[in-house]
């Protein structure tokens, strides 16, 4: 049973309550729309995350395979010596975008992830080149997964918050307002009836005199 809101039973309060009810219903509509959009985005992000994770695992397994072949070909010590001075350029542009009121990060690898460089091309084999190429692709996949994972978390948090608001509006605020409005209406009707009965009684008394 929804609780009555504690107000004085006056017409002004009734008007105020009606306005508040209209606002609450308008907000409920918008919040519900927002919730459905957030859920849609969340499910899409979940699908994309699973896809990106699978892709990353595939690429990492390919990379480890290529690296172990390269290590087997050159030997660990020689490979380590070659890789000691190498570097991989990675330029990531980070920004924010807005999805239905949620600010979520957006990462993009710019200039393409360049493969590792500065190792000696004469002393190394194509196995190492392949491993370098694959590592660049792995970096790209990691950045993509990082973005999706964070979006996933933020959207989930916002869905929880929005659900709480929707439930509060649906089960507490709006029923409470409606019950109070009904209560006030009944009170005013009762007052009118009392007034009519009083007038009738006065009329009878006046007629007797």
């Amino acid at each position, binding site marked *: 049973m929804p609780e009555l809101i504690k*107000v004085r*039973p006056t017409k002004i309060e009734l008007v105020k309550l009606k306005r*508040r009810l209209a606002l609450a219903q308008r907000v409920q509509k918008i919040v519900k729309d927002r919730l459905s959009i957030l859920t849609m985005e969340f499910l899409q992000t979940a699908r*994309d995350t699973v896809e990106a994770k699978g892709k990353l695992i595939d690429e990492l397994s390919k990379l480890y395979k290529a690296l172990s072949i390269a290590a087997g070909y050159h030997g660990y010590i020689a490979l380590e010596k070659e890789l000691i001075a190498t570097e991989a350029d990675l330029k990531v542009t980070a920004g924010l975008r807005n999805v239905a009121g949620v600010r979520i990060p957006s990462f993009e690898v710019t200039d393409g992830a360049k493969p590792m460089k500065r190792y000696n091309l004469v002393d190394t084999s194509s196995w190492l080149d392949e491993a370098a190429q694959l590592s660049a692709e792995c970096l790209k996949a990691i950045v993509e997964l990082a973005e999706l994972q964070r979006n996933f978390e933020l959207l989930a948090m916002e869905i929880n918050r929005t659900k709480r608001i929707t439930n509060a509006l649906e089960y507490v605020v709006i029923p409470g307002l409606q019950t109070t409005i009904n209560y006030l209406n009944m009170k005013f009707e009762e007052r009118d009836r009392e007034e009519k009965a009083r007038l009738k009684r006065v009329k009878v008394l006046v007629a007797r005199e």
Partner: protein
Amino acid sequence: MPKPSHDEALPMQSGQSGQPRYEKMLQECLRGELRIVNAGLPQSQKRLSNLLTEEYPYVVCNDGSTHFFKKSELAYLASMLDSDEQKALLLPMLIEIGANQAEAAIPMLSEPEGKVEEKIISKTLNMPVICEKGRIRIYKPQLALLRRRFKTTTVYVFSPKIVA
């Protein structure tokens, strides 16, 4: 009308005149929700041709934050359009969510007559689209497809009045 006697009045929860404190807080919270949903709308849209030349393409939103565009998405859009269409297309494209929960509408803001948006959406969805009163109407499953392709180049607008 008789003035209500004191015993008729329901007990007040706080000393506020006529409105308990938590009620005011609730009102603020509800108004805040309305502000939040449309805070991410851009103050102004930019043309695709301009965005392609920017190093960090973005637009400023109503709340002062920035909305960042992915270059890969812009490049994909550019690959679909010729140079005149690139000049006509305004980004981010708006997606209106309104009273009818099954549908969404995309206002055709580009010149002439929003043909560019129509071209992009029909190409992305791989189907002809319905245009009504300067708006392209799409259903929720199509919206998901569209958003999957254009994550940063589309934004949502919430209004109970827009979509009849």
